[in-house]
């Protein structure tokens, strides 16, 4: 597989379902920092859950004006059920068809497993990757790296 896109690379644009009847393009968010959080699958165990943590610390991301997008290969309806069950207050994108295309573009698709890596990107307001991080798949990377990266963005 290809390597995770490093800092300094223009973030590949994409358009993905954000609900069963709405789509979101990365380019629509130009002008503010975007946190792109790839994760392997919805419905992983509850309290140690990465998206749950991000939901909790959303206000810290918002202090930087940043938009958080979760992204996995699960379908839009699966995301709806998952986000409702966990009361998530940020969008989950469905990298579902063609499966994992966006994960592949960012160099974080696991072909053997058919799911994405656990990987984080902070994209600056001009659409350039400012920071990227590939986590061991079983380890929730937390949010410290994201916050460090947001703080290092030029004002």
């Amino acid at each position, binding site marked *: 597989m290809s390597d995770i896109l490093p800092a300094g690379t223009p973030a590949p644009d994409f358009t993905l379902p954000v609900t069963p009847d709405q789509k979101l393009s990365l380019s629509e968010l130009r002008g503010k920092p975007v946190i792109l959080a790839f994760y392997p699958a919805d419905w992983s165990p509850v*309290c140690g859950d990465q998206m749950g943590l991000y939901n909790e610390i959303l206000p*810290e991301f918002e202090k930087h004006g940043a938009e958080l997008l979760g992204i996995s290969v699960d379908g839009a309806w699966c995301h709806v059920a998952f986000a409702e069950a966990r009361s998530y207050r940020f969008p989950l994108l469905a990298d579902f068809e063609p499966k994992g295309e966006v994960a592949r573009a960012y160099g974080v698709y696991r072909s053997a497993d058919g799911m994405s890596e656990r990987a984080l990107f902070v994209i600056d307001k001009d659409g350039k990757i400012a920071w990227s991080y590939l986590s061991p798949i079983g380890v929730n990377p937390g949010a*410290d790296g994201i916050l460090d990266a947001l703080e290092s963005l030029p004002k």
Partner: protein
Amino acid sequence: MAKLKTPVSPEDHAQGDSLAPVTLVEYGDYECPHCGRAYPIVKGVQKHFGKRLLFVFRNFPLTQSHPHAEPAAETAEFAGSQGKFWEMHDLLFEHQNRLGLPLFEQLAEELDLDPEALSASLESHEFVARVRADFSGGVRSGVNGTPTFYINGVRHNGSFDFEYLVEAIEADLAAPRP
């Protein structure tokens, strides 16, 4: 490798010898079932290492999924302000499935604390700043869920089952000191 950014200080709630060679820090949430499961395990680990271990508990309430987690943390801090943090910490975990104001008041009474003063404290969020400070420090240290443990300042990424925690602490004790 995630590291503890907020060093253990006298402000912390700590059990054990402050000069112990190993400090185990837990970021926990009184309503989190995993933390409830970890509670007796940590007791066992403390017993196993005795004087060689200092244990510190910090608050990491996941308020979005656990509505009672923050008031429970504030209740423990209230008890802590009167020298009864650990007693309340233990009782909260032992009654984890009944968290809520009636239980908090009942536990306060059991510990000879004033239940009315407790409910006033919860009402005014007297200790919320302390709880949030623990939380923010945890976020910056790479807390990635609850419970998250740090062994001498380094995040423990493996299982928190007794034998794994003991093994990780033994490994740290055996490591050469700078």
